[in-house]
């Protein structure tokens, strides 16, 4: 698992992974400062 969150950075890639794994998606919109 590792000790950090495995963040995706691209929506299309995220959607493809979610469809393959049948997992929900969590999007974190953050303020880059």
């Amino acid at each position, binding site marked *: *698992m*590792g*000790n*950090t*969150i*495995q*963040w*995706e*950075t*691209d*929506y299309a890639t*995220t*959607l493809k*992974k*979610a*469809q393959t*794994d*049948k*997992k*929900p*998606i*969590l*999007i*974190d*919109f*953050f*303020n*880059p400062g």
Partner: protein
Amino acid sequence: MDAVTYPKGEVVEFLNKAVISLRVPSDAKPLSDDFNLKWTPMLVVLDWNGKEHQRTVGFLPPEELIPSVLLGIAKTHFDLDQFGDAIKVLDRILSDYAGSSAAPEAVFLKGVCGYKNTHNPTPLKEAYEKLQATFPASEWTKRALPYRLLP
């Protein structure tokens, strides 16, 4: 979130196992417009087809992030008519995060799932009774108030 919530081992393990996590800066177009982003942090739970089922705005400490995301996953199952799967997730909130802010809504939604699964009104009444006993001041107890009249 970066300083307090995301470094926690329990949060890392949970997110890596339960969801595909995507981080997007608030100025990233067109996604921020597609989701009508107005404030950060904003967390959105989607199903695997990209349909939204829950969003939260504002900081969540580690002990609230996991039950909040679990509630989003339960709502995803609920919206997809997967009531048994939703109940399993809601039971996890109620067993492992019973004191979290997500718990009252989890009790309410479990009652609704129980009814939708069986067409027996008993789970709705049980949800109200549990809410009244455990979370008497919660808005979810008020929302469940009519269920007290069920046979």
